[in-house]
């Protein structure tokens, strides 16, 4: 049986570095990538803002320098740059889209410069236009690289690939107790919001009943592929399941009287499609948080004996009917 480490494709991570990671964990590679991409997005955004401001403020001088009097066009280009820059800086979803907008803008600029080049007669003016075009071409190359990198981030996290979610929390209990509580899979529905039931099939395998967003019900069978009592459990779905995923939870003693550090790692092994796609989104980046929320509910359930909630409390809002109530009618 392949160890969890292999299945998770930890790659270059050696046993030694993993041992170190358990006591002093370094930021996860995905976190570093996220940070790099955020900086890239910001860089492109400020570049847009800078160019846009220059085009608006110095429209007349820039136009004149390149030998045209149509500085209105220059201002419009400036407005376009500012809009793109603002969208990139405002941390809108799908930054790649706006990075591509930058590329489209560059192409447009190059086209305009081409027309200007053809129309200009004096060699000095031609040289200036050509120089500007070269600069724009350089920026275009930069934008292309940026767009591709940001686009990769999106496909890497979209439901079509193999979404993965990893999160960690400190729980005020011994690793052994936490292991025991998790190992009894029948407990999972008590804190996992979308898991309706986990039942033993009798052959060491478990049948999961899960409610996907949108109310669809999914079923799959899973088996434990690796475990170390008191430390970790890994499970994966059997290959005939609609959803093929690998789950891994690790319990490590936290320093002092801090209990345990619990790390939950869920990954899709095959791009899920059809009915299973919505559940994949739960794990995917857009919903990296929901898996963290599952882990948080585990902590809360085990520390307090219940999962704190305000669902069903009174308010001055018109009562909304839950789906279950609708079904009953």
């Amino acid at each position, binding site marked *: 049986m392949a160890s969890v480490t292999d299945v998770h494709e930890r790659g270059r991570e050696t046993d030694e570095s993993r041992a170190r990671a358990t006591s002093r964990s370094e930021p996860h590679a995905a976190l570093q990538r996220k940070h790099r991409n955020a900086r890239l997005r910001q860089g492109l955004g400020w570049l847009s803002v800078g160019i846009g401001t220059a085009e608006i403020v110095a429209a007349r001088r820039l136009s004149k320098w390149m030998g045209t009097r149509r500085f209105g066009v220059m201002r419009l280009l400036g407005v376009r740059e500012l809009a793109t820059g603002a969208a990139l800086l405002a941390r809108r979803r799908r930054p790649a889209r706006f990075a591509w907008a930058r590329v489209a803008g560059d192409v447009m600029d190059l086209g305009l410069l081409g027309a200007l080049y053809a129309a200009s007669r004096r060699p000095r003016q031609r040289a200036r236009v050509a120089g500007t075009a070269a600069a724009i071409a350089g920026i275009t190359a930069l934008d292309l690289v940026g767009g591709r990198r940001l686009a990769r981030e999106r496909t890497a996290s979209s439901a079509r690939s193999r979404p993965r979610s990893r999160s960690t929390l*400190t729980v*005020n209990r011994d690793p052994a107790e936490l292991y025991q509580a998790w190992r009894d899979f029948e407990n999972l529905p008590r804190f996992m919001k979308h898991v309706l039931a986990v039942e033993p099939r009798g052959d060491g395998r478990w049948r999961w009943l899960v409610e996907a967003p949108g109310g669809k019900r999914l079923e799959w069978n899973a088996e434990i592929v690796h475990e170390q009592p008191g430390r970790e459990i890994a499970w994966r779905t059997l290959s005939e399941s609609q959803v093929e995923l690998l789950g891994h939870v690790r319990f490590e003693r936290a320093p002092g009287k*801090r*209990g345990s550090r619990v790390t939950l790692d869920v990954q899709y092994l095959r791009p899920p499609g059809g009915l299973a796609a919505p559940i994949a989104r739960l794990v995917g980046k857009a919903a990296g*948080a929901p898996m*963290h*929320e599952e882990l*948080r509910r585990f*902590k*809360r359930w085990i*520390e*307090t*004996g*219940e*999962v*704190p*909630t*305000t*669902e*069903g*409390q*009174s*308010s*001055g*809002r018109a*009562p909304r009917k839950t789906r279950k109530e609708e079904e009953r009618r």
Partner: protein
Amino acid sequence: MKATCWYGKHDIRVVDVPDPQILNPRDAIVRVTLSAICGSDLHLYNGFIPGMRRGDILGHEFMGEVVEIGSEVHNLKVGDRIVVPFPISCGHCFFCEEESFSLCENSNPNAWAAEEIWGHSPAGIYGYSHLVGGYAGGQAEYVRVPFADVDHVKVPEHLSDEQVLFLSDVFPTGYMAAENCDIEPGDTVAVWGCGPVGQFSIRSALLLGAERVIAIDRFPERLQMAREGGAETIDYMETDVYDALQEMTGGRGPDSCIDAVGAEAHAPGLIGAYDRTKQALMLETDRPFALRQALLACRNGGTISVPGVYGGILDKMPFGAVVNRALTIRSGQTHVQHYMPSLLGRIENGDIDPSFLITHRMSLDEAPHAFEMFAKKQDECIKVVLVP
């Protein structure tokens, strides 16, 4: 039942809502016998706290009689008379075990939202926006109390509701603010703001052995109440606060400063206009005028204790004063559960009778009017209690 609900800025209504129900095994339902409007409720009223939803039930200072208990509440019974602390705390997480109850890791169902703006989430709080859980509050006839086995103090028959109600928030909050000053014999403590928390800070500082307390406000009735509590006073509309404090402390500054004002400080002149403008443009969320003044006035190596509520991003803080003069800043939502038993003891043995604070007694139906009156400080209003 009737409940005081928030429908928007300056829009509070008392409406009929469904009775609360037990949702979890450690819940209890309390029939509210007395509740109060807190100064921090005014930040909601004035629309400065994000994360409110139309129809949220307000109120985090309340007490009453237990009418129903969940299956896992073993230390309460129907009929018990309890005061409920405003932070909701599980009692079993790392922070609850070290009695930092307002930092409970488990009680805020919307912890992710708080993490977005504050980095980490504090405990849930009744009726104080969905950032801290969106729990229905106690300015109502009934209220659901989660973790009721941990979050209560039983009060004896011979003490009236008005004497013990403020154990829910303002008394422990003022007390913790004073305790955070680590008062030594001979110390002078300056208190910005003579609202309810300021009043309890003044009295607590003296109970904890301060030599002098200097209170700062502009409303005569509040300054009067501060003097009755043993403080000397400064009216900041009449005198420059820094100069007055320098003179009163022999040029050294107060040993500790308490900012019991928080996010909506009133400031005269240019700096006040600056903060109001930035706040209106949403470039800062708070108007930290009192805090700035406290940082500059405090003596070298002194402590700034901040019970006043700030919500988000503050601007133009003289942080150089903190570094170069070795100031300590201490703050936090109050760990009410930690203080309730000992402060109940102080009420019982006559050290203090918190009911001095109440200026207005009104019925729950009058809550909208009470909010307006309290916000505009009309009719010398300092503290309103509401009887359902």
